[in-house]
């Protein structure tokens, strides 16, 4: 096949402790749109980052136009004809559209140090026109454009950079549709077809399967860092893709499903019509004593923001939160802590631990009263309690006084749990509690979650994988586009199928 533009052979990427990608083969033909689908953490984003040379693979090779392809950074990838449109937009909002398109490449418009903006705007206009974007003025500031227009400018910029020298380049689109409405998505698809008709190829990542099926010529399905299927457009349907993404269910034993507690009747936390403008609305649910309520949803479904509101990090602008029947509003996590709500945050290194401080200090900081007498902090009490938790949770550390930075991911996460549990809180919010944790520590954490609920603590869980969320939860909320799309029971003897949950997510 001589019309292959880009080829990946047996590519692998390992991070300390985890395998992000293994044995990936992929080829992109000229003028083709490739769809990539998979759950969160299946390896799609890692693959895109490797193709765009932002990250380096640990094994395997890539080739473009039949020649070996590798680069140290995005810039080199651009020079070789690969461009990436980032999820978080990389445009300079305070510059004009044309200035953004030619950012860092002003040389060709320069005479005696001065840039001929008129000339730049004229060629900007031509670039935009080649994509049929006549409604965007090259001299207007990006700030003044709506999201869809910004996205198109971003694509135009990337296309212009990589297309400068070679004919036939590869554009990577990471979730370009997540901020667009239906009409805008239509337009984006038209432009994508236009781009491929000009001899370029596109790799397209989206959570919305119907879109992927509509626009892609071939679809690669990923699960746990491996390619599980390659589906042609004509064979593709949503059910097939779901199945390939989800794979087979895992064993209940791993998740300690048998020790899942029967929730009590008392409601500890009730949420009514909660909303945060632009992120989610009309979210209502209850958390009972000893219950694990899992929230599923794709990135951008609003589940992360619900989580931030619950732990006081964001303030809801609609609806109510009732704790034991009394209404509470938190404008700060410290107020939530006062009311007995504390979270295991998602970004452990930035939010869960304070690396330069000691293990003992980290464990004690969310329950200072417990180690103080008459407002005087007792260092001995702090150390003693830390020793107790180090033993209880089997934290591997050379002592309570060493800084948390020296601990492995799993042990650092146990320190986070020790801090959150030791404060006798009534509601614990677990935001990706097993992210970046090795298998052994994962199992211990699952056991720990069972023990927490045994004590009657209510848990809200955002799992790392769907499998995990379903297996650990006694009830599930499925969120889509900022709304609760479904609510289902998940008792220990009758767990919902992943595929049924996914259907509501996408």
């Amino acid at each position, binding site marked *: 096949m001589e019309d292959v533009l880009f080829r990946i052979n047996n590519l692998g990427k390992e991070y300390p402790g985890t395998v992000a990608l293994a044995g990936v083969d992929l080829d992109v033909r000229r003028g083709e749109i490739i769809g990539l689908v998979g759950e969160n953490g299946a390896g799609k984003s890692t693959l895109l980052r490797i193709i765009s040379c932002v990250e380096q693979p640990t094994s395997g090779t890539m080739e473009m136009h039949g020649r070996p392809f590798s680069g140290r*950074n*995005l*810039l080199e990838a651009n020079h070789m004809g690969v461009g990436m449109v980032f999820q978080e937009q*990389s445009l*300079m*909002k*305070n*510059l004009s559209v044309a*200035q953004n398109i030619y*950012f*860092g490449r*002003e*040389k060709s418009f*320069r005479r005696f*140090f*001065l*840039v001929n*903006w008129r000339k730049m705007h004229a060629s900007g206009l031509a670039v935009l026109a080649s994509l049929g974007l006549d409604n965007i003025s090259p001299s207007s500031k990006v*700030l*003044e454009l*709506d*999201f869809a227009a910004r996205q198109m400018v971003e694509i135009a910029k990337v296309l212009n950079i990589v297309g400068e020298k070679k004919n036939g380049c590869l554009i990577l689109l990471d979730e370009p549709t997540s*901020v*667009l*409405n*239906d009409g805008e998505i239509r337009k984006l698809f038209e432009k994508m077809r236009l781009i491929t008709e000009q001899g370029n190829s596109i790799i397209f990542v989206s959570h919305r399967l119907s879109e992927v099926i509509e626009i892609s010529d071939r679809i690669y399905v990923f699960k746990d860092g491996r390619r599980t299927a390659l589906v042609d457009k004509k064979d593709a349907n949503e059910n097939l893709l779901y199945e390939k993404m989800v794979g087979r269910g895992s064993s209940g034993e791993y998740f300690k499903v048998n020790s899942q507690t029967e929730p009590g009747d008392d409601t500890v936390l009730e949420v009514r019509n909660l909303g945060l*403008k*632009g*992120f*989610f*609305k009309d979210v209502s649910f209850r958390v009972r004593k000893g219950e694990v309520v899992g929230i599923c949803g794709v990135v951008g479904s*609003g589940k992360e923001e619900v989580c931030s509101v619950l732990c006081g*990090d*964001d*303030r809801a602008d609609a609806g109510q939160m009732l704790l034991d029947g009394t209404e509470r509003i938190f*404008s*700060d996590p410290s107020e939530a802590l006062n009311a007995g709500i504390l979270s295991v945050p998602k970004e452990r290194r930035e939010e869960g631990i304070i690396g330069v401080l000691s293990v003992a200090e980290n464990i004690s900081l969310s329950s200072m009263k417990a180690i103080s007498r008459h407002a005087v902090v007792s260092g001995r009490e702090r150390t003693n309690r830390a020793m107790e938790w180090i033993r209880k949770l089997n934290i591997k550390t050379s002592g309570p006084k060493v800084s948390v930075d020296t601990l492995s991911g799993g042990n650092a996460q146990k320190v986070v749990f020790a801090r959150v549990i030791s404060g006798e809180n009534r509601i614990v919010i677990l935001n990706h509690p097993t992210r970046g944790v090795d298998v052994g520590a994962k199992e211990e954490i699952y056991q720990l979650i069972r023990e927490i609920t045994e004590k009657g603590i209510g848990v809200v869980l955002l799992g790392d994988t769907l499998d995990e969320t379903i297996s650990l939860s006694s009830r599930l909320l499925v969120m*889509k*586009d*900022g*709304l*609760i*799309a*479904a*609510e*289902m*029971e998940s008792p220990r003897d*009758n767990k*919902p*199928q992943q595929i*049924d949950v996914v*259907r*509501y997510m996408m």
Partner: protein
Amino acid sequence: MATQDNNSTGRGEPTSQSVTAEFSERIAAESVKNRIMQLGPLLVMVVLTVAMSIFVPGFFGFINLVSVLQQVATPLVLAMGLTFVLLLGSIDLSLEGVMGFAGSIVALLVMNSKNSMDLGVLGILIAITAGTLFGVVSGVLHTRLKIPSFMVTFGMGSAITGFGVLSYRGIPASVKDQMFARIASGTFLDLPLLTWFALVLFLITLVIERYTAFGRHLYAIGENESMVRASGINVDRIKVIVFAWSALCSSIAGVFGAIKLNIGEVIISNGFLFSTITAVVVGGTSLVGGKGGVGQSLVGVIIVVIIQDSMILLGVNSYVQPAVQGLIVVAAVALTVARSKKLIFK
């Protein structure tokens, strides 16, 4: 659709538009607010001019207009340097030090009361070059050693002031060069020559800001530095140039000071750091970087000078000046800063 599963209760088709629509609403509201913010300083300037003309006796008149324009010269020159620094999101606290230093040594290099030097224009150039070199040093320390700019320039500022005083060891030189007196009293079209110099510098700075790639890169660095680095632009070099540019402007201001006061002493710069920051910020250049510009700074300088001038006309104690500027700068920053709860300020 598929509702065969055991115990789920679907909540119907979500109205997916709403949340996305709310999001774009937020963006739209932001850009409206931005536009109002841009016009604010200009409006303040007009209102102030009208108010002062009505309430301050002696404000409205040709003589005072010339006086205001004369007072504009030095702060405008300083503001040209500082604006670029603020656009990066950095700060230059060494401005007073460099200004005092350049003013001190220029007096020693032209015909003066302390030594037999008489270098004339060359002396001015040497003084400005020496001052600029300090800016290069600040910039290099800031970018190479990764020390926050406020700290580097704060330390450098004291050190440079020290060098300034050491250059004349206690007794400052008074300038004997006739050229200085001629420039100080000279006018062109009824405007002081120094004001003309300042306006020319303003135009040059404006051209750099608007019509060079360098100018655009400044804005971009203030907005999103890591993205600029990823675009393959040498950010460190730009930063060093900007700190050198700021020191260049401060040095020119120092020469202005020596010309105006006929003496070369570090205290000629007293109070200018604060009034310059006030002017640039009041004009609408944000401390966070990426927003504002030289044009805005001109408006800011005029606002600050009008207030200063009115206070002098009203006979307010001159010690009150910095206090008033302090309140203004806090108010101006507070109005322009985005106040999200999660935003971290140090």
